[in-house]
């Protein structure tokens, strides 16, 4: 109706313009950095003198970048394994138990999600240095575990919310102890949530830079941390290649999470008919 009046048409046009502007603002950094990584020249500006993969070659051939990728993978894998295990168990415990102070425990568990990362980083540095965990892989893995676990707790809890508790009783009535019931009944049914949590955890670790700045020694520098260093010490367009690779990996992780979620929604839909 209102779209037919001139004023209504104007309003719709304005809405579209604002929407486009916001979207542009959001993707601009990505849109700017990705083409640069394919530049044949060596300066961070447009227009590109030509296209080449030279910065990717430099990225993979220099120890400066390549070691940081390996570090990111080691720390990411370790943190993901730990955060997924602990986060899943925590979510399960909170789901099963009815005790006073449950809300408080949940709040503490997801605190790292809301506390500013620089605060966490400073705290971790003070806590880890005396026990020799600063400048170690173990320290970085533990720190990233703390940061990533809340995401696992949240995604697994969301999956458990739709889980029919009677299935646990049915498992017990069939003679299955808690461990077997978890392995054969609970885990297969919440697997999409656990996998999504794991991907989230990996993505968190992969993107994390503040804690790495404080806690990682030269031997544990992760890719984002190295980009930070690269800006000052080593300015080359390889940093654009690094950024593009990070972006690609993050998109892949999030797409997988999205795919898992739509799949588990379909499964839940099928289970509703039971």
């Amino acid at each position, binding site marked *: 109706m209102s779209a037919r009046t001139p004023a209504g048409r104007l309003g719709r046009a304005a809405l579209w313009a604002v929407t486009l502007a916001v979207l542009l603002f959001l993707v601009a950094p990505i849109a700017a950095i990705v083409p640069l990584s394919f530049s044949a020249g060596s300066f961070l500006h447009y227009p590109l003198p030509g296209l080449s993969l030279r910065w990717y070659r430099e990225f993979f051939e220099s120890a400066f970048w390549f070691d940081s990728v390996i570090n990111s993978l080691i720390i990411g894998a370790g943190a993901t394994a730990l955060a997924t295990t602990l986060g899943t168990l925590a979510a399960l415990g909170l789901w099963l138990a009815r005790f006073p102070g449950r809300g408080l425990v949940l709040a503490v568990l997801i605190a790292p999600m809301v506390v500013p990362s620089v605060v966490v980083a400073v705290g971790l540095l003070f806590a880890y240095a005396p026990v020799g965990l600063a400048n170690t892989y173990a320290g970085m893995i533990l720190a990233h575990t703390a940061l990533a676990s809340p995401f696992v707790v949240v995604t697994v809890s969301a999956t458990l919310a739709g889980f*029919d508790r*009677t*299935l646990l*009783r*049915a*498992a*017990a*009535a*069939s*003679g*299955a*102890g*808690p461990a*077997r*019931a978890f392995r*054969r*009944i609970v885990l*297969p*049914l919440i697997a999409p949530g656990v996998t999504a949590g794991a991907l989230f955890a990996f993505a968190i670790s992969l993107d994390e830079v503040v804690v790495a700045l404080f806690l990682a020694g030269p031997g544990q520098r992760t890719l984002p941390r190295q980009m930070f260093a690269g800006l000052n010490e080593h300015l080359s367009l390889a940093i654009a290649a690094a950024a593009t690779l990070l972006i690609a990996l993050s998109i892949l992780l999030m797409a997988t999470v999205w795919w898992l979620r739509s799949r588990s929604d379909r*499964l839940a839909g*099928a*289970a509703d*008919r*039971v």
Partner: protein
Amino acid sequence: MSAPIVRFLGVEKSYDGVTPVVRHLDLDIARGEFLTLLGPSGSGKTTTLMMLAGFEVPTAGRIEVEGRDVSRLPPHRRGIGVVFQSYALFPHMSVAENVGFPLEVRGMARAERSARVARALEMVRLGGFGERRPAQLSGGQQQRVALARALVFEPSLVLMDEPLGALDKQLRAEMQLEIRHLHEQLGVTVVYVTHDQEEALTLSDRIAVFHHGAVQQLDAPAQLYERPANAFVARFIGENNRLAGTVSEIDSEDGMVKVALAGGRSLWAMRGDCGTAGARAVVSVRPERIALAPGPAADLSEDAIPARVVETIYLGDHVRVRLALEGGAEVMAKRPIAAADPRLVAGAEAAVAWQPEHAIAFAPEPGD
């Protein structure tokens, strides 16, 4: 009688420590028996069943299975089959995997397992459905799978909590017969929960009527119907007419009492749980036990009560006649269609009578 398979000894349960949900339950269940816990919503049936299964812990008292105190035994060690109202099939497993799960848990070899699963599915008339997913079955079929899963490991005791509650009327009747046949065939002890009295009467050897967390009466279906122990049971099982009055005389030898009805008339009735002379009482009479005839009362019998027909309701196989008695009380009478009298139309003069042994005097329920 051989030793009971299940004993509840002074079992009590409260979820919040204040409101009693089950009050001092003493109940022996015989081996091979089909016992039904029947009662209105919230009367504590599920709670009782879940304490036996091990999913709830009694607040006081003790539960014995096969002579052994199971209070400290977790549910997965009790070896009791359970069928849930919501079926509770594992959605990620096939029908055969669902039924085979209790055997898998018990470490049975694959070959024997699939033979046993096939037999169990055959037993519930689902042979050939093994590869399906639960979501691909109808409600009745899913409940059959749940039955097979609860029976496949040959437990001596199976608990069922309103297993047919989610099915439509026709399917319920069909499944009731199947459950009955399975019980006869397997000789397994069944503890069954329902709030449907017809279902309880159809299936059970004995019925425990629950109300406010206490067993009101534990008896065979016919006993329960013919000799209810109190006004609640009489009201809950089948229909009944209730006439308020006061106990005027007690004949303890014959177990009869004389009740002065509110309308002024006195009549004899079996002694239920009513008090002694002077106590208020409710006389209960089943509609099918009321004899009625058109015309003045004296024509029916000497102590017939004069009445007037309020309405008649035609129900195909029988007719219901609502009558206003002399003194104001109303009763409902039920006649088979072959014995219906066409003269009993609304407004007609009539007379009603019944045998004293078909009337029972109870203490009024709280709120009566």
